[in-house]
């Protein structure tokens, strides 16, 4: 049962609520939760605010412990949590601030295919993708990598896959961090993690992961949409997936390995899942090395999935990928910790920024953006539930000022999987989605029930909140036509 928040919550403005640092013992900074009137009720009744307060106790935390409006209860950090730690001041890194699915993220591919051409054959397309893309629990993929090659993948991420001819340089340019975090340490990843990920590179997995065939319904920002190649009425393809069993095991290994570290550094934790180590310490560096390796595995995974997607679409439409206009828009990570430089109170600071269920949202002009996006800002991909809509946004200067260049990541769950299954009893979710124009196929018996639209917040409210707060700007709204899940 979620621990209901009993502390003080002060409304700062229409989109932000503060938990004053005096609310809970040990808070070093305030907590700030992004939520509007539509969302605040669910926020208060969930356990997220308590976790925001807990994170505010971590050493080195700067400015505030933040939560995006898709906040919900997680492990240690809430989902939607953002926290930046001052590396030079003994700031910590916490595996709970990244999550078990390291570098879970989203990739979007645009096309020149008119939505009508897809819609009239959507069932066949969904069936084709269902056959061609490996998904589902315990389902391995066609790409098998021996241990030495896996280590290369963990070191080089999507770059290694592209170097093998399974992608393009444009894919890498249109991926956060170029699809590879430097200073990854494949040797810091356990044998069990390698085993769990052995045949999973290039597989979708299950749960809330999916490949969705969409169309661009509305363009809000013509200049940004043009830079991204998004045109109203054209099809697009979105993939949501992470580091699979390898990443899960890395997180598990380091939550265990770091268990005794807080005591050694005199850190008192309000929650065991907030286990951590100073960034500038051997255990901290080891975790970061392993986390980066797992993040690189996730980017390699999504690169292979896009490769397989392109091949499948070529087969289906009988035209090469170039003729279909298949080009990657962007790839974002929404469970990750990165060392970034930010300006805080006029001072440039080197921070360890945790984004757990939150997306980087860098503004126009940022040096990390590829040239094609330097004028408009970093694309931000926000998947909604499978019945409603997804959004493409861009980052803003306000996001840098308020939230270390961060924004939301999705719709956020409101129902447990068990409650969703109970709600689905006597109903045919697949038929309901079809009636709403969405063809869905899932491998798992309860996948569609667990992932039904009612299990999630309305992404419109979440996006409205981050846009009204200035963290992001809307570029386009995408609607689903077909979805495949494990």
């Amino acid at each position, binding site marked *: *049962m*979620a621990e209901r928040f009993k502390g003080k919550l002060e409304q700062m403005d229409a989109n932000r609520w503060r938990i004053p640092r005096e609310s809970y013992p040990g808070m070093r900074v305030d907590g700030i939760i992004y939520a509007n009137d539509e969302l605040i009720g669910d926020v208060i009744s*969930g*356990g997220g605010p308590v976790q925001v307060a807990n994170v505010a106790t971590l050493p080195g935390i700067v400015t505030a412990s933040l939560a995006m409006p898709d906040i*919900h*209860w*997680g*492990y*240690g950090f809430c*989902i939607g949590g953002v926290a930046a730690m001052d590396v030079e001041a003994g700031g910590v890194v916490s595996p709970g601030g990244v999550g*078990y*699915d390291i570098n879970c993220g989203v990739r979007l591919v645009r096309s020149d295919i008119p939505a009508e051409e897809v819609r009239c054959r959507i069932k066949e397309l969904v069936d084709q993708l269902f056959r061609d893309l490996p998904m*589902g*629990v*315990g*389902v391995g993929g066609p790409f098998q990598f021996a241990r030495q090659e896996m280590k290369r993948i963990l070191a080089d991420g999507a770059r290694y896959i592209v170097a093998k001819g399974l992608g393009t340089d444009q894919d890498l340019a249109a991926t956060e961090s170029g699809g590879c975090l430097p200073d990854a340490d494949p040797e810091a990843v356990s044998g*069990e993690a390698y*085993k*769990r990920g052995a045949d999973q590179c290039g597989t979708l*997995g*299950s*749960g809330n992961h999916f490949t969705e065939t969409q169309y661009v319904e509305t363009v809000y920002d013509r200049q940004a949409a043009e830079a991204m190649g998004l045109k109203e009425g054209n099809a697009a393809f979105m993939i949501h997936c992470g580091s699979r*069993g390898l990443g*899960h*095991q890395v*997180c*598990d290994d380091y*939550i*265990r390995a770091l*268990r005794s570290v807080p005591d050694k550094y005199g850190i008192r934790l309000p*929650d*065991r*899942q907030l286990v951590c180590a100073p960034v500038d310490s051997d255990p901290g560096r080891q975790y970061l090395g392993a986390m980066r390796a797992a993040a690189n595995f996730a980017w390699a995974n999504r690169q292979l999935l896009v490769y397989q997607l392109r091949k499948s679409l070529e087969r289906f439409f009988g035209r090469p990928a170039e003729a279909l206009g298949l080009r990657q828009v962007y790839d974002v990570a929404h469970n990750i910790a990165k060392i970034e430089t930010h300006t805080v109170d006029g001072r440039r600071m080197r921070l360890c920024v945790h984004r757990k269920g939150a997306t980087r949202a860098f503004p126009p002009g940022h040096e990390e953006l590829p040239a094609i996006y330097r004028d408009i800002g970093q694309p931000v991909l926000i998947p909604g539930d499978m019945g409603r809509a997804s959004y493409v946004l861009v980052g803003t200067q306000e996001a840098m000022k308020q939230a270390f260049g961060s924004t939301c990541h999705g719709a956020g*769950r*409101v*129902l*447990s*999987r*068990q*409650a969703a299954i109970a709600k689905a009893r006597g109903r045919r979710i697949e038929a309901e989605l079809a009636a709403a124009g969405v063809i869905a196929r899932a491998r*798992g*018996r*309860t996948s569609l029930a667990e992932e039904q639209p009612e299990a999630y917040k309305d992404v419109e409210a979440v996006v409205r909140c981050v846009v009204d707060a200035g963290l992001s700007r809307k570029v386009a709204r995408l609607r689903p036509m077909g979805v495949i899940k*494990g």
Partner: protein
Amino acid sequence: MEWKGNRNLLMAKRCRTFGHTADMGLEAHADTLGELLEALGEGLAGVICPRAQVAARQTRDLEVSSEDPEALLVEYLSAILNVIEADRFAVRTVSVVAADQGSVKACLSGEPLDPARHEILREVKAVTYHQTKIAREGGQWIGRVILDV
């Protein structure tokens, strides 16, 4: 909390699942610590693959120790999860050979995962420490754990 019995149970010990926003919880009650750990181990196995579909053709032994009971519970269930996920081994029963609040030795019976015969219900990413409980209350052992699925 509403009782939702695990229909995959083959044992007398009681283990049920409960909801958690994005994930799933397991709760069990038993007369002894060993039985509690067996119930939770089999509960974990059952949320991944219905145990009734699994034949006891092979065994896997595991032994874990930890500094406190909650950590031990997480380590023990994580070890079972590792056998299932990394070794692709479907579990039918869990038998605890020896257990105290600092260590547990157990034997898993089952067989290699076969997608043709074993329905994989869901992927469990990890066993978390969140709201973990293992305690003796009112003459019974009670254990709770939340799984990241």
